[in-house]
């Protein structure tokens, strides 16, 4: 067992646990976006940052990827953490304002402004879908492409993948795709065939902007082109 102190409370957890798991065990809430139980930890969204260490050596780390160390001192809601978290949420809102998950997180953390140029992206590259596809569905049909600002998620060559079995797991775990699942007005969704997936394919024109690996859509059978 590894002994550490979280927000002043001592706790002993198994070796190899993450700070996030230890904090959860004590009941301290840490917001997450790219973390999902059952999938490996990735550390892309940076929302779960916590402060470790003391004095000038104190720093922020992502609690989902940082493994507990003996004697570690962790603060999950210090001023520095809160400031960083708010900025991460502001950046998320600026890029992906339509996501219900992001909206809820922003509201829960009292983010009241968005000072950047507004964008409407349908992917925050958290990589949940990739891990779902690989680790739970054993398919490896989608992955990251490119780097930096050009990074994206999709199939090789943007072609229908031979590995994809149209399971819909990728869409199921996506935190950003509320737009495509329920469109702007959920009640107008024509097809309730897959309540879990809520297809976005109301109109072909809006479908263009959506992130969908299903072709045709399992629910409404609309093809992309």
């Amino acid at each position, binding site marked *: 067992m590894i002994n550490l102190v979280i927000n002043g409370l001592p706790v002993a957890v198994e070796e190899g646990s993450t700070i996030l798991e230890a904090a959860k065990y004590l009941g301290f809430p840490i917001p997450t976006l790219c973390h999902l139980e059952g999938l490996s930890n990735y550390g892309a969204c940076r929302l779960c940052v916590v402060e470790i260490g003391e004095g000038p050596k104190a720093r922020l780390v992502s609690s989902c990827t940082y493994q507990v160390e003996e004697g570690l001192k962790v603060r999950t809601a210090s001023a520095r953490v809160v400031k960083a978290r708010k900025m991460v949420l502001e950046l998320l809102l600026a890029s992906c304002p339509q996501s219900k998950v992001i909206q809820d997180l922003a509201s829960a953390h009292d983010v009241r402004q968005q000072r950047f140029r507004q964008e409407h992206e349908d992917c925050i590259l958290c990589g949940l879908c990739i891990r779902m596809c690989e680790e739970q569905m054993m398919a*490896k049909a989608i992955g990251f492409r490119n780097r930096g600002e050009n990074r994206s998620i999709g199939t090789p060559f943007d*072609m229908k993948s031979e590995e994809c079995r149209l399971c819909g797991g990728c869409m199921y775990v996506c935190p950003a795709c509320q737009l495509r699942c329920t469109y702007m007005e959920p009640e107008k969704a024509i097809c309730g065939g897959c309540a879990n997936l809520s297809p976005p394919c109301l109109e072909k024109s809006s479908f263009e902007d959506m992130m969908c690996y299903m072709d045709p859509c399992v629910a409404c059978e609309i093809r992309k082109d």
Partner: protein
Amino acid sequence: MIKDITQSEATEDGITDKQIDALIAKHQTDRNGVIDILEAIQASYGYLPPHALRIVAKKMNRSLVDIYGVATFYQAFSLRPKGKHRIVVCLGTACHVRGAPAIVEEFERQLGIKAGETTPDMKYTLETVNCLGACALGPIVVVDERYYSKVIPTQVRDIINNSHSGDRDTADSHQQQKTIGEAVPS
């Protein structure tokens, strides 16, 4: 765009499985060598043909998603064919403060394409690179492995015209080169 895989791709540009296999065999190490293999394919064909990536994935026992990720992550790889002459403008910091952005713009104007693009006649590809490590002599332009130092915008036309005579092998490090760049005030 999502489209179906077409059969024609299997033999595109006359690339045979055998050629790719040979490149893989040559560069595969006991551990991996994926990047070396992709580099060899890039060097042989000027780009990474989709068919070749599929063969690499299969032979190396890696998923196509992984290989495609690697192929798009690194700047040295291109999934599109490149022009006959490759013009590379260095945009390192030293070149930047000595006026490299104006050189890129001049090339863009003269060639009628943006950086990263290839002219429709497939003659020139204009690229920028983040540092070639010849910082003392910036701005640096490299055309088909021939280095031009202290380039100013008025030399751009000459450099383009000069590239026609560069159709020989210039790989030898001690071979003769012509330099346009005379010392100019920066």
